[in-house]
């Protein structure tokens, strides 16, 4: 038996896969004060649901895969360890000056962000390395020892070390590490060149700082998780989801916790890819996850999940930079809880303010007074007030209607249904722009991709989103409401290694590059050997490259582990031009290409089957008709169906409302929904 458990902000999602490969989904409330308790609660819910004893269930388990927001929450709320930064003499303001940049040019109400580690805990270390690795100022051990004494006085709990050019010559950083080890025993530290061997001192320093600051907390969390699972009867392997859509052992995560900071959204594209390929045979997917307050969009491009290095926790330029590649996810403040309002110029806005989980939409009856996207869906008859979350919660339709009338319909001078429809239109547009942004950046044409709608609220307007984008097909997977946990079950053990070996195609040093690539391969092989995985192993190489004098690199594939001839270099050059053409619509064949870094990703499959099959016991059929509103038709009698009770390949023409226990899918007029053998819905936007 295998468990995939994703702790989100509101719910802890769990999927249990039995030994026959049949899966069941469960949800329990997240317990922020002690998230492991919520995990154990979800396991209890599962045991109850399957009618077995929790201990018996857990002792039959071989694998527990966990996604956690514990690390990212600690960063956002400032509960990380008291951390010091040691950096090159003369350069104490790396974390203060950052990389510059700002948004909202005319907004002077937002002060400059504080450095992630205060200047008071930043210490300069003598010694300087040049770009070619030459030492031009010597290391000074006595000075470092003096700094260490101050670290003791300051009672720091973790130390980050980032020296200029340590990626080319790590000797000084290594010596600082050795001194810390000896004179500050028990205090965790992070050396920037080991953690994140890439150029750009701010990003490397920020990586090291965040990583070190999380070590005490996440070390404790991982031990506690493993121990309590063990006490509850689980004796298998505990893995944790990483920000780059893989999984690693819990103890590895404790030693480099930065890798799991964004574990939440990274698994959605793994699941999304499987469904778009299985259901539609399409290797290009836009994967959307609709939550209560945010809308997360990720991508699959020709079967691969694009990564980004623009990894900010919080707002760009104002938040915390991780400096580490992760799954490219565009998040916007748009979700079921986003609030609709009309400004004094008469323009309707939806969000970015959100009613959140508390008080939530007006219809929840928990004290919310401002109209939200969910309220609009209730008013339009798209959501059934008496059958929300499978009937476990009832909704206040009158309250929702009164609120939309007061705050939207009357200021705009339109009727309530038109106002509710307008709220969905604007929410849709916000989500569409998020998708446009990320697809432009990654060079994907939405008209050639499948839109995968995940998250409990995805069904409310995903058909409209697909329509606006020109996406021919929308998929709502059977496990859509727990898409990340489903992705976790399908994921591979994964590690990514980096080498900062600068090269230019104008004077390509094959021997030097081959040495770097060979080093990466060795590390991948060692990882695979130690992985304990039984399935296939795969290593992929990439270059972070750009045209001569460009500043922003793109990823270009590297076909093999060594450049044996000039022809191999030419092939790489051709691949780079093609990638640039793909992303930006032009290339510059005459220009040399600069490579600032090389990376290798090793994946080891954890099981030999793929995909996910959901149990279909106990589905009630509940077919009826409800009056619902669509802009094209006005109020109309609309069929309502349980989609998990539909037969494979059975289709229904819109307008229709298709429900299961966790979600409702609104199929507008003109669209046609078909049940797929995977269990999910495939909706042809333009009809059959």
């Amino acid at each position, binding site marked *: 038996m295998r468990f995939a458990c994703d702790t989100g902000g509101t719910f802890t999602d769990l999927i249990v896969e039995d030994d026959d490969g049949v899966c069941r989904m469960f949800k329990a409330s997240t317990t922020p004060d002690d998230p492991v308790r919520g995990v154990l609660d979800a396991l209890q819910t599962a045991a109850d649901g399957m009618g077995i004893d929790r201990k018996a269930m857990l002792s039959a388990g071989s694998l527990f895969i966990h996604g956690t927001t514990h690390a990212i929450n600690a960063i956002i709320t400032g509960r990380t360890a008291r951390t010091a930064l040691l950096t090159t003499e003369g350069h104490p303001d790396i974390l203060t000056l*950052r990389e510059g940049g700002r948004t909202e040019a*005319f907004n*002077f109400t937002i*002060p400059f962000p504080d450095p992630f580690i205060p200047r008071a805990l930043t210490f300069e270390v003598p010694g300087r390395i*040049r770009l070619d690795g030459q030492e031009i100022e010597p290391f000074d051990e006595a000075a470092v020892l003096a700094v260490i004494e101050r670290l003791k006085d300051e009672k720091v709990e973790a130390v980050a070390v980032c020296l200029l050019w340590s990626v080319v010559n790590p000797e000084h950083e290594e010596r600082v590490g050795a001194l810390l080890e000896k004179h500050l025993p028990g205090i965790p530290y992070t050396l920037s060149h080991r953690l994140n061997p890439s150029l750009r001192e701010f990003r490397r320093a920020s990586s090291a700082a965040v990583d070190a600051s999380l070590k005490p907390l996440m070390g404790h969390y991982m031990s506690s998780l493993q121990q309590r699972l063990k006490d509850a009867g689980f004796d298998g392997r505990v893995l944790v989801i990483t920000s780059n859509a893989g999984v690693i052992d819990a103890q590895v995560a404790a030693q480099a916790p930065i890798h799991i900071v964004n574990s939440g959204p990274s698994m959605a594209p793994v699941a999304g890819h499987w469904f778009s390929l299985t259901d539609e045979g399409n290797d290009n997917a836009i994967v959307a996850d609709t939550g209560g307050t945010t809308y997360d969009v990720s991508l699959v491009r020709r079967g691969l999940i694009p990564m980004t290095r623009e990894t900010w926790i919080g707002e760009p330029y104002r938040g915390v930079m991780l400096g580490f590649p992760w799954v490219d996810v565009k998040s916007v403040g748009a979700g079921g809880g986003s609030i609709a309002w009309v400004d004094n110029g008469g323009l309707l*806005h939806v969000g970015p303010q959100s009613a959140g989980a508390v008080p939530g939409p007006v219809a929840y009856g928990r004290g919310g007074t401002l109209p939200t996207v969910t309220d609009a869906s209730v008013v339009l008859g798209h959501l059934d007030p008496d059958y929300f979350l499978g009937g476990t919660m009832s909704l206040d339709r009158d309250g929702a209607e009164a609120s939309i009338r007061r705050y939207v319909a009357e200021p705009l001078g339109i009727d309530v249904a038109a106002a509710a429809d307008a709220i969905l239109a604007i929410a849709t547009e916000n989500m569409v722009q998020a998708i446009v942004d990320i697809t432009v950046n990654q060079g994907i044409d939405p008209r050639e991709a499948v839109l995968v709608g995940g998250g409990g609220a995805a069904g409310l307007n995903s058909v409209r989103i697909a329509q606006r984008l020109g996406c021919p097909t929308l998929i709502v997977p059977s496990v859509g409401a727990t898409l990340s946990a489903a992705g976790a079950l399908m994921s591979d053990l994964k590690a990514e290694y980096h080498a900062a070996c600068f090269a230019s195609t104008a004077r390509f040093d094959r021997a030097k590059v081959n040495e770097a690539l060979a080093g990466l391969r060795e590390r991948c092989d060692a990882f695979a050997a130690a992985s304990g995985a039984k399935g296939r192993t795969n290593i992929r190489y990439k270059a972070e490259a750009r045209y001569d004098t460009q500043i*922003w690199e793109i990823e270009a594939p590297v076909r093999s582990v060594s450049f044996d001839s000039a022809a191999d270099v030419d092939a790489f050059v051709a691949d780079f031009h093609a990638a640039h053409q793909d992303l*930006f619509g032009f290339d510059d064949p*005459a220009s040399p290409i600069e490579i600032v870094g090389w990376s290798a990703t090793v994946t080891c499959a954890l099981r030999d089957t793929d995909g996910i099959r959901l149990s279909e016991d106990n589905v009630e059929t509940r077919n009826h008709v409800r009056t619902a509103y669509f802009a094209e038709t006005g109020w109309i009698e609309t069929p309502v169906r349980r989609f998990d009770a539909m037969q494979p390949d059975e289709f229904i023409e819109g307008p229709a409302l298709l429900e299961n226990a966790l979600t409702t899918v609104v199929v507008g007029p003109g669209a046609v929904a078909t049940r797929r053998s995977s269990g999910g819905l495939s909706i042809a936007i333009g009809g059959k």
Partner: protein
Amino acid sequence: MSDTSTTSMDGVKMAILNNRFEGVTRKMANTLLRTGRSGVLNVARDFSCCVVTAECELLATNEGLPIHVLSGPDIMARYMKEFHPDLRAGDAFLNNSPYHGCSHAADWTLLVPVMDNDGRHRFTVVVKAHQADIGNSIPTTYHGSAKDVYEEGALIFPSTKVQSNYETNADFRRMCEMRIRVPEQWWGDFLAMVGAARIGEREIIAIAQEEGWEELDRFRRDWLDYSERRMIDAIKALPAGFAVHTSCHDPFPGTPETGIKVQAKVTIRPDDAIVEVDLTDNPDCLPCGLNLSEACSRTASMVGVFNAVEHSVPKNAGSFRRIDVKLRENCVVGIPRHPTSTSVSTTNVADRVANSTQAAIAQISGDHGLAECGAVIPPAVGVISGLHPDTGQPFVNQLFLGMSGGAGAPKADAWVTIGHVGNAGLCYVDSVEIDELRQPLYVYSRRLKTDSEGAGKHKGAPSVEVVFGPRDCAFDIGYVSDGAVNPAQGVRGGLSGGRGDQYRIRPDGQREQLDPCAQVTLQDGEKLVSVSTGGGGYGKPSERDPALVARDVREGLVSAERARSVYGVAIDAAGKFNEAETEALRASVPA
């Protein structure tokens, strides 16, 4: 919803179309940023993208540099129509003429008319990008001492057709390659600009195919009216008043010995919902590169106004109707006549105009306006050029190693890395490692200077000091650093920010002061120390929260002595402030 009988567009449709037009400019900007080749594009983000209507009104812009975009695209679009009445799909026009609506000669602007199927001109997409080199007589795009456009030396294109039928004119390309330094870099940037403009054209046509051109025309009219209503509300929130603020640019070659004194007379008339900025009472044009183009004179005034009002008001021709900028011909901050040089038009004197405007508004209202931002361009942000010792190839590029200059605001401390007021902090700061990799230089140190902030209730930015020099070679560096004599002033009792400075340190340690506007050759082993200007404070230092002062002291930004003498805050050995002593200190300071 689908009622077409009413002539005005509802707030829903308008919001959706605005979102889409902004999406167009974002897409254009993203392409340019990610594909531009010179540092001034891909690091400084010294570019902007916008959409102008067929009537030459600014409709939508990306989040670009403020000094780039508010006024200028409208004027350039008018010249495009006047000089080329027969516009066709596939045309592209280049304008970098400060006498025809461009900001200055370095800001190459590509205008692409968007045509419908009947050959009717519907919109113009505009991409403006500061070039690394424009063929000036010296290797810098900021020629502060040029006595006229001839000495400046740039190629000037007054709305010149450079593409027909989507093909670039080969003669134009060959001319540029003969005249512009490091032509491969120039060509890469030009390709990036064309790519961005054509993406904008394609996207607008796609919107029109869905919505119809007439619908977009209705949007244009109603969106500008909406923006005007927002601006009316924003101005009505200000008190009525009149104020004059004077800001002086330091003396440079070609200026009077006292520098260039700029004054903005600002009148706020909430009843008419008008802000008037009068710049006519200022000196005539000068024989140097510091004069403003008409686009920069207007835009700088508008930047000062928009920095002072509710920030969410859309910036387009609609809200501009409520700003009345008064200019005169042949004025250093007005409308220059050919062959006046405006080489440095977007920064130095333009900043003095924007700063004067926002500081004048702060005089009128204690809840609005801003202190003065710091001045530029220090050597750490200069243009360096030379021969690369590893390859023997020539290089030229602008550095962005260190600017600060943020101004104290009514409700917040400064954004430290604002650069200068016309940039608004959008510029990135160079990575030391990337700069050392790309250019043969060496950065010895880079740090914020203690006690250089503009003290105030909300403080201005401190100075950044950068020490750098050549590696295994000599190189030239050009810069135009204002702010050594006239630092950024505080407002409402706030104090001035730190002054700019630059000097050379010879290998024997001897120190040599350098001119503020110069083209300097640094020999191997020499170091250049560049100190950026700080920003002014907003409100009295004695009103600053003592807990924040204590934190500034712990962080090493302010010394304990300065906390005491300037802020009236007593800090104890543990770094906390002493409440009783602080109260006594502040009581003894004259209000």
